[in-house]
């Protein structure tokens, strides 16, 4: 029994895959109606379903597949020409097969519906159309056609190909069809498909998850070995551990890859959705896709499936206009929806663009006022971008009539919530009359995320960097004046805006420590900002997210747990849950919120990022960089107490940034995170024709970002911190660093 269950399961998995391919092929077929190759491929798929279902005794399934197959034979043999009716009929048979498979999966039986009318219709299509004049007249006698066709084609058959061989013996009425199938043995696609299948195999996701766990564990062990190796003098051990390090990193990368799937896994269904919907509401829509191969973690693929479908439906329903309206506007009758996906800065960006009517801000505004989301005064002050963002607000739907297509109450706010749940963001842009675009940005994986580690009440906690806006540090002495009290609630004025404060140890019932300074971690969840007061901010790093067991599922304050470098467990804070618990997640305070910063469009400043010895990131303004050099460490000489190097016929004084910065760790946490010790990355900085070289860590990237510095970083040589691409980055104060080594560098 168990054996058969396994077989049925395999059959289901395989058939679902086949059906997904069928959807695509049917649509291709509509574009190139004559393609025998596509018809043959469709035929083979349907035939396989039929044969296998016969083997398992799924008679209804077999009946539907058989009727569809008969129709396909006619098409393949040229007895019929594909038209809209046939194509719709075939698509419906695919739907029926899918429905029966779904029933089988759920109950193990085929369900009560028997699809007789569908079968009759398919038969009618096969026979009815045969009356029309077609080229190959002899094959088009009404009922026994299938058999005849088989007879006609049988002589050309050499060997039945692939699965039909066994299934034909098991299926009750297969002989004709398997012969037909064999009639096209020399089809390139069949052999190509076979060899492709040989190169891949199906692996249970849970196996991959376990692999991932083991690799995570290996990474931790590697880190410990590296620490020990660093402390010994044995060069053999050091070399071996370096190799171990290297291999582990590669292994981690490869295992991560096994969980990746191309976004096509989600997109594959959309052409069908668009086609059906467009037909239903009398629109002409073309769906273009770019970047189908863009890969995403499986868990993310699952999470974006529904939101993406919803948005594409929205585009067809609300975005694209009816053909007459489009022509009147001077556009082609056929509307176009473009899906684009690409990797950018450690994230995946998905765009959904349409060339429809765009979103009218005036209508949105009126609707939002009508629904009481904003007041008239507020609306007057809002930028267009902010107004468009209202579409994502809960309880907003502009569809004038509620259709069964979109606007069923679960609107864009659900889409946004779902995307934000996986750490993504949604952005809308639109030009009236030209079209609109929705941009979704999501992290590559959920399994490993960058996080900030803090302590509170003697415990360590990880905070996902995706929620992190900035860090504020206030000296205890000044706290009394800077932190104000509003009826028992603490608030801090952050650049003139009130930031509600949550004391983490108080909220979690942990012992309260009186530290020398107050560290505020400014967080954002669901458009609301609040500050969490912690005892110390430790550092940042990538953490492997592990779910909590059932006993702790009810604790909404924690999103999971992770294992730290020393092998102990730390809890990951759920920012949304924490905010809710602390009642910091109120209503959006008068619509100003997070978009304000975006809307004002602060000027951006290019910055060069490099790694610091403790695995953090530091930045330097590109305007202070003349050039970047890699210098040979053995060429460094000393002149007095200053290190110098010969550079372009000049003597270049060198400043080792990490030695100047007081708080930098003496021993790097990750010794080889930087560069080989014999090559020094040097940033050349100049003033009044004089040059100085800053020896920094491994160069990471350049970025452009508005310089919203957090002044209170409080270390010498650091201008402040800001969050770049979700990571805290310290910006160097170049002048003060240079002065510590070359005091008169800036003197005229």
């Amino acid at each position: 029994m168990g054996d058969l269950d396994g077989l049925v399961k395999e059959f289901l998995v395989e058939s679902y895959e086949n059906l997904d391919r069928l959807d695509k092929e049917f649509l291709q077929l509509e574009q190139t109606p004559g393609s025998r190759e596509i018809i043959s491929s469709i035929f083979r798929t349907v035939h396989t379903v039929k044969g296998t279902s016969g083997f398992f005794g799924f008679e209804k399934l077999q009946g539907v597949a058989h009727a569809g197959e008969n129709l396909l034979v006619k098409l393949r043999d040229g007895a019929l020409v594909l038209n809209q009716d046939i194509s719709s009929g075939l698509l419906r048979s695919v739907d029926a097969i899918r429905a029966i498979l779904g029933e089988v999966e759920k109950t193990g039986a085929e369900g009560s519906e028997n699809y007789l009318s569908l079968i009759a219709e398919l038969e009618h299509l096969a026979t009815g159309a045969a009356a029309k004049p077609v080229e190959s007249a002899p094959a088009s006698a009404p009922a026994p056609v299938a058999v005849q066709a088989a007879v006609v084609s049988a002589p050309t058959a050499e060997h039945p190909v692939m699965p039909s061989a066994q299934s034909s013996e098991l299926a009750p009425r297969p002989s004709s069809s398997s012969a037909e199938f064999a009639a096209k043995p020399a089809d390139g696609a069949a052999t190509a498909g076979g060899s492709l299948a040989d190169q891949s195999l199906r692996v249970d996701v849970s196996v991959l998850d376990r692999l991932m766990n083991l690799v995570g564990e290996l990474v931790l062990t590697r880190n410990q070995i590296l620490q020990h190796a660093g402390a010994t003098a044995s060069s053999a051990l050091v070399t071996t551990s370096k190799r171990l390090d290297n291999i582990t990193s590669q292994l981690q990368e490869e295992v991560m890859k096994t969980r990746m799937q191309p976004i096509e896994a989600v997109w594959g269904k959309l052409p069908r959705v668009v086609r059906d919907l467009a037909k239903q509401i009398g629109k002409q829509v073309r769906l273009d896709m770019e970047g189908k191969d863009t890969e995403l973690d499986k868990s993310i693929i699952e999470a974006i499936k529904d939101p993406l479908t919803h948005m594409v439906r929205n585009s067809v329903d609300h975005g694209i206009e009816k053909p007459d309206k489009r022509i009147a506007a001077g556009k082609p009758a056929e509307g176009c929806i473009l899906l684009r996906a690409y990797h950018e800065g450690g994230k995946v960006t998905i765009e959904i663009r349409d060339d429809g009517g765009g979103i009218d801000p005036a209508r949105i505004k009126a609707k939002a006022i009508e629904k009481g989301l904003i007041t008239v005064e507020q609306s007057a002050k809002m930028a267009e971008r902010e107004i468009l963002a209202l579409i994502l607000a809960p309880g907003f739907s502009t569809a004038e009539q509620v259709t069964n297509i979109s606007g069923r109450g679960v609107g864009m706010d659900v889409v946004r919530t779902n995307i934000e749940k996986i750490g993504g963001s949604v952005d809308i842009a639109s030009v009236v009359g030209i079209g609109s675009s929705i941009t979704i940005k999501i992290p590559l994986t959920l399994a490993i995320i960058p996080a900030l580690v803090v302590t509170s009440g003697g415990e360590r906690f990880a905070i996902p960097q995706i929620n992190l806006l900035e860090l504020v540090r206030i000296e205890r002495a000044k706290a009394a004046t800077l932190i104000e009290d509003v009826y028992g609630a603490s608030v801090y004025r952050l650049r003139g805006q009130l930031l509600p404060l949550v004391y983490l140890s108080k909220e979690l019932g942990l012992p309260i420590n009186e530290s020398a300074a107050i560290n505020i971690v400014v967080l954002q969840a669901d458009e609301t900002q609040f500050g969490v007061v912690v005892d110390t901010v430790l550092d940042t790093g990538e953490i492997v997210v592990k779910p909590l067991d059932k006993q702790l599922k009810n604790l909404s304050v924690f999103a999971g747990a992770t294992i730290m470098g020393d092998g102990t467990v730390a809890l990951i804070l759920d920012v949304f849950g924490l905010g809710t618990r602390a009642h910091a997640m109120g209503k959006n305070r008068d619509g100003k919120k997070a978009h304000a910063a975006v809307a004002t469009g602060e000027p951006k400043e290019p910055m060069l990022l490099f790694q610091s010895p403790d695995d953090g990131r530091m930045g330097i303004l590109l305007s202070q960089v003349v050039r970047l050099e890699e210098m040979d460490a053995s060429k460094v000489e000393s002149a007095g107490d200053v290190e110098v190097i010969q550079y372009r016929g000049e003597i270049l004084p060198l400043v080792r940034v990490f030695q100047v910065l007081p708080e930098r760790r003496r021993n790097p946490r990750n010794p080889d995170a930087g560069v080989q010790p014999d090559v020094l990355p040097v940033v050349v900085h100049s003033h009044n024709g004089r040059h100085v070289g800053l020896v920094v860590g491994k160069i990471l990237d350049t970025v452009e970002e508005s310089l919203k510095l957090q002044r209170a970083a409080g270390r010498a040589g650091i201008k402040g911190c800001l969050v770049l691409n979700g990571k805290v980055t310290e910006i160097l104060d170049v002048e003060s660093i240079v002065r510590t080594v070359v005091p008169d560098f800036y003197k005229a």
Partner: protein
Amino acid sequence: MIDVATQTRQFCTFRLAQHLCGIDVLVVHEILRQQPMTKVPLAPPVVKGLINLRGQIITALDMRTRLGFPPRDDGRPPINIVITVGEGAEASTAALLVDEIGDVVEIDPATCEPPPDTIPGALKDLIQSVCKLEKGLILILDTAKAVKVE
């Protein structure tokens, strides 16, 4: 199905307060000495913390608290019994914190009786049966219920 009434079964025994308790040996993964533990704020009192078992994060449940016994006061570190109950998606792994680990004993179901009615409520719910050995009584715990924490 195995006929429970006649088959002798093996039980892993441990001491909790003054009682000797037993759990089906088949659910036991391993026995660990004291592990570094991370406290979980806001969790129910029975959850003592999280431990790292070779990369898997496991919830440690204090059996004294679970059964309504007074807290440990002899200063000795508790022992972790790592068990898995349920199957497939329902499976749940947890570490039970007990005072002292005992032997694995074979028990003839014929020597077992349902828990006496006089046992206090919380405890009675978790005790499957009471076995009469020569040395004394063994309380057989219902592990599925024991790891369920509201």
